């Protein structure tokens, strides 16, 4: 946490990569130097007074040389403004923030599971897990084929709600089919996606006795543990709530009540 910085960062590129989905690349050697998979950045989408009040948090999708990559959906005013960035523009970024995924646990196969734009942190995680020598199986669920984005992922299986690409159904059902056909003694799930998906995944992981780590979203004002806005209920601990921004966004599925 001590390595976080607030910087104006030059935009390298911003391109549409799927339906409503953009890939933003910006330069920040300082953030790259300390970023870990699962961490996020908090971005001002317009000058103060010219856009939404609050910053918007985004998972770091990938790092390359001095470049940070983000993948995001345009869902409102803030993300729309962000998607309009062009090379030569500058964005005000705070990061890296939050606790990364715990990649170093005792497991052989990493099961990466994402719903929709929850795919965002997976490329960075994939690259890192390869360094740890883990086997990676990736499961991504989208509404339809137009949203599918699988670059920089390993051994990808796709589910779509409408059946227009891959498995017809949701990503948790797809993972369950896979788990029923394969026996993993030592696997760990890393997941990011909508809360309803993470809930179903938590149940599946419990039934299959697989360790499962979730990257959560939360409504936050500051992103650094001050506003106390992004509370999530803990299952057991001395404190009733954890903060998504500071204690997470990565939590074991057994740690939190979604």
């Amino acid at each position, binding site marked *: *946490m*001590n390595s*976080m*910085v*607030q910087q104006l960062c030059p935009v390298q590129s911003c391109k549409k990569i799927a339906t409503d989905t953009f890939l933003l690349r910006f330069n920040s050697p300082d953030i790259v130097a300390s970023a870990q998979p699962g961490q996020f950045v908090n971005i*001002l989408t317009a000058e*103060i*007074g010219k856009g*939404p*009040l*609050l*910053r918007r948090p985004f998972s770091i999708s990938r790092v390359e040389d001095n470049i940070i990559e983000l993948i995001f959906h345009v869902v409102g005013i803030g993300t729309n403004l962000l998607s309009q960035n062009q090379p030569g523009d500058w964005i*005000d970024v*705070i990061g890296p923030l939050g606790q990364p995924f715990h990649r170093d646990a005792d497991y052989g196969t990493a099961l990466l599971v994402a719903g929709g734009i929850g795919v965002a942190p997976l490329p960075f995680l994939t690259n890192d897990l390869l360094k740890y020598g883990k086997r990676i199986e990736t499961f991504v669920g989208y509404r339809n084929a137009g949203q599918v984005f699988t670059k920089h992922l390993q051994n990808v299986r796709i589910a779509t709600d409408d059946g227009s690409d891959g498995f017809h159904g949701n990503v948790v059902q797809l993972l369950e089919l896979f788990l029923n056909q394969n026996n993993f003694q030592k696997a760990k799930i890393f997941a990011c996606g909508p809360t309803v998906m993470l809930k179903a995944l938590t149940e599946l992981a419990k039934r299959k006795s697989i360790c499962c780590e979730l990257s959560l979203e*939360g*409504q*936050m*004002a*500051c992103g*650094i*543990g*001050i*506003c*106390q*806005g*992004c*509370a*999530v*209920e803990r299952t057991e601990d001395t*404190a*009733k*709530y954890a903060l998504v921004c*500071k204690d997470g966004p990565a939590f074991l599925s057994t740690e939190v009540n979604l």
Partner: protein
Amino acid sequence: MTTLSIGSGIKTSFTLRGVEFKNRVFVASGTFGYGDEIHDLVDVNRLGGIFTKSLSWKPRSGNPPQRIVETASGMLNSIGLANIGVQTFIEQKLIYLRTFNTHIIVNIAASSLKEFCDVLSLLEGQDGIVGYEVNVSCPNVKEGGMNFGTDCKMTAEITSHLRKLTNKPLIIKLTPNVTHISEIARSAESAGADAVSVINTLVGMAVDIKTRKPKLSTVTGGLSGPAIKPVALAKVYEVAKAVKIPIFGIGGIASTEDAIEFLLVGAAAVQIGTMNFIDPAISVKIADGFENYARENKISDIGTLVGALDADVKFSVIQSWL
């Protein structure tokens, strides 16, 4: 503590009950934590002072999610005074806060008069605290909070009891959710308050029309941010007309210009709140902005701006409330 900003020749400081603050820019309670999370992003030593996150006797876990909703030019929060409790503050946070070259004012929240007194008494024995801000204005807790600050008698009672327990600056933080805030301010003043902070958040709400549920778990929350600045200015103006004690102006300040508006309507100093979340260094930028404004306008003491509004009160409605 420097009185004059180095090299500028402009007086930036002011004094409250014998405590000299290096400038008139502070950070508001609940928007700066206990200083430890944010110090990488802002030079806290440049501030007039830090108002800490509210402290109660026991730790409070706060309200269930959802606690925050963004609104037009503002945000609603319903944190519910989540805090580590005064004992843990003393053991874990105060040692670090003492290393800052700025003044620490501890904000106290409580659900009873006794709790206010207990928390303040425990803090009185500690080094590194120059004063207290008393939160009688939180709109997001069922017991205490705003219920105290909407009542003149309760406000006076709490103030007078705490007054007996300390010789340090005692600042009462007022709620705008009353008919006439000037009446509450007068109660605080006559009970011995050294200053008032004006304003805490405005009660507000937001609804999800798909689910027909309120967006906040507590149905209503407190509105803050630039959206409330015009309301806050009017409240500071009203209080300034009613009391002689200094006012800490708070409410949506996002620029030097905003902050100077507060001084002109009668605030002796300002607290930056919600905007710390968006630009952690904004308070220092405003402190610099005060000096630049003074230089450009050939003002030797920032204090000369306090209450310097050029208003014709002939048609002022507020005037009739006082």
